[in-house]
């Protein structure tokens, strides 16, 4: 049953299975296991980025296509939901229409970019997507009448998904042995915010299982063949260009759905939160450090990086304070420079662990 859900793709190492299970349990129980809205926000972000990064891995890790336009598709989904929530009213139908429209737009743009650049030369794709991504980001901040410009859009989501809706309280569980304190499980009310979190969580879970299904299907095998040797794949009789365009479109659609989830959670979209080049860099780092060519790598990469963004900074702050006297070293450990160290880690992992954390764990088993 579980194996069928995972489409036969075993994690392949006991340690990896345990880590993945821990992540799943932590995310599934996030509203009750951790205290505070900040933790819940981080958990929701992790869910969204896992999907986003996994959809990017479909391109980069499975097919060997480098794209810098992934944030556009993410943004399409997010802006789709934002615009329809603004103009169609505060209902679930608006969210669905917005997500659908965003996905369609993303699919269309991905097909056009793919037709143009994948037909000629795969390396063009990387350069062209970089150019298109910056053009779209500029366009979105320029067309402020439609998109709200740099300020972005704030909108309302259905009341059932906001903190204003109450669904009762978590019961206090009394542990069955004497002298134990009553266990309160976070001791909070079940609000619409928590329901909203579960919408995000289950959406992300479904999309990840879908991606696992895709990569373990015959279609996914062809993609891997193209990654390994496109000339040979063509010679065997697969139309490489069609497969490349199809996978570009597919990953764009999944990315836009991740964007829609993100928009539902944040109730705000802006160029910096969904379209910026920094997010693209984050996605790249997550895929490569987690492990290219495995969906589980995307899961691990997203979790590690998002946690690092929160906790590495604290660690560096302590270290920088300790080195206060030495000028350059203190600057190097400045918490704002955390990207420097991730960049170094990124380059090292491309050289030495091209299969990332997941590849490392899988290999250590045998």
């Amino acid at each position, binding site marked *: 049953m579980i194996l069928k859900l995972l489409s036969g793709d075993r994690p392949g190492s006991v340690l990896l299975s345990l880590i993945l299970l821990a992540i799943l349990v932590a995310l599934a129980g996030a509203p009750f296991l951790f205290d505070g809205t900040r933790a819940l926000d981080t958990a929701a972000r992790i869910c969204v980025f896992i999907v986003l990064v996994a959809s990017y891995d479909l391109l980069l890790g499975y097919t060997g296509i480098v794209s810098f336009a992934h944030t556009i598709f993410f943004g399409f989904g997010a802006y789709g939901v934002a615009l329809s929530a603004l103009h169609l009213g505060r209902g679930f139908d608006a969210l669905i229409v917005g997500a659908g429209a965003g996905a369609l737009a993303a699919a269309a743009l991905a097909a056009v970019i793919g037709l143009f650049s994948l037909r000629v030369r*795969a390396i063009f794709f990387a350069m062209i997507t970089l150019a298109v991504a910056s053009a779209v980001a500029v366009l979105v901040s320029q067309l402020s009448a439609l998109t709200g410009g740099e300020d972005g859009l704030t909108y309302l989501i259905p009341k059932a998904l906001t903190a204003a809706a109450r669904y009762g309280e978590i019961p206090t569980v009394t542990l069955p042995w004497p002298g134990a304190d009553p266990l309160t499980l976070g001791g909070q009310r079940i609000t619409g915010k928590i329901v909203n979190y579960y919408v995000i969580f289950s959406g992300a879970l479904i999309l990840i299982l879908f991606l696992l299904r895709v990569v373990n299907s015959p279609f996914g095998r062809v993609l891997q063949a193209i990654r390994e040797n496109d000339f040979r794949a063509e010679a065997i009789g697969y139309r490489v260009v069609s497969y490349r365009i199809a996978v570009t479109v597919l990953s764009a659609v999944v990315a836009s759905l991740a964007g829609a989830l993100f928009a539902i959670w944040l109730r705000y979209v802006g160029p910096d939160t969904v379209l910026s080049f920094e997010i693209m860099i984050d996605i790249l780092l997550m895929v490569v450090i987690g492990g290219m060519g495995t969906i589980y790598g995307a899961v691990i990469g997203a979790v590690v990086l998002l946690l690092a963004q929160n906790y590495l900074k604290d660690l560096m702050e302590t270290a920088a304070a300790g080195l206060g006297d030495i000028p350059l070293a203190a600057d190097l450990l400045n918490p704002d*420079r955390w990207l420097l160290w991730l960049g170094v880690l*990124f380059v090292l992992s491309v050289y030495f662990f*091209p299969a990332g954390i997941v590849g490392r764990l899988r290999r250590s088993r045998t």
Partner: protein
Amino acid sequence: MTHAAPDVGDVHNTQPRRAGPGHAMALPILVVPALVIAGLLAMAVQAALPDGAGLLRALADPAFWTGLPAALGAIQASWLTLTVSGLAMGMMIFLMASGLTLVFGLMDVINFGHGAFISVGAFVGVSVLAALGAWVAAPGLGANLAAVALAVLAAMAATGAMGLVFERVIVRPVYGAHLKQILVTMGGLIIVEQLIHVLWGPDEIFLTRPEALKGALTWQGAALEKYRLLAVGVGLAVFLLMRLVLRRSRIGLIVRAGVQNGEMVEALGYRLGLVFVAVFVAGSALAGLGGVMWALYEEVITAPMGAELMVLVFIVVIIGGLGSVEGCFIGALLVGLTQNYTAFLEPKLALVSNIALMVVILMWRPEGMLPVARAK
């Protein structure tokens, strides 16, 4: 042997051979004057259009056509200003892009970290200018140009040295693997950008041009900024020098032969690896030069400026045709001119216009205007 031997190295080339370099170049180079004229016409049409009238209806109106010559005369001065500024921008982008395209042609290496050299060049150059503050503020042209020349030399030395390290540490281990090249050079870009933050602080740095390069000359009623004229001159000089070296010198011959068929050149006993390192360093130094020029043009520098300029650089490299210095030159001029004309006509579309330019050129010639290198 009476029949020609089959061309083994070129099995993927299914297109008919073009007549020769002279003929193949003639058409793309004509695009530049065509674009300049199109820019003039578009500006004149926009000026002659009555307020709020649709373009199609105006075209059918004879009053529009009688008013057009007058509009042409009225718009001429700003057109001249825009053309010079477009050429200046194009020349600076050419400086940044030329190294990248040669590196790709020679070794099939695509360097996404090229923008790092632009940023570092700008920061080093501006630091030198700041150190020579007295020379910069002095009203004499000699002292000003000496300060700029020193800044440029320092920047080029710094980025050249950085290119050497970058090639050794970042690029060399991943020869022959495009995917890893893109990822690793991107990583290099992140690291260098962050190091700039560490060394120069996180804020943008404002600067002023030397006294003698401030202000504008007036010619035919058009204000031509002195600095833009200097940029055009420098860009043209570098282009002609590069062409001279590539066409007339022995090393140029080896580089061009290496771009066309590297294995053959190596078989003849040349160490193409060394040539490649030299080209990589030269390309990095040129990016540094472009960075300093751009810094003086914009009068503000930031660490991500190189990465932002890479967007234009890539468009130039793509439409020029990978590996071609001439194509890169034409492409850069096209991009600079298009950007400036559209910024005047419809400011919101400035960056998108370059994408449109790229699409049009790729529909006309899918491999770029003057492709030399074929991706392996």
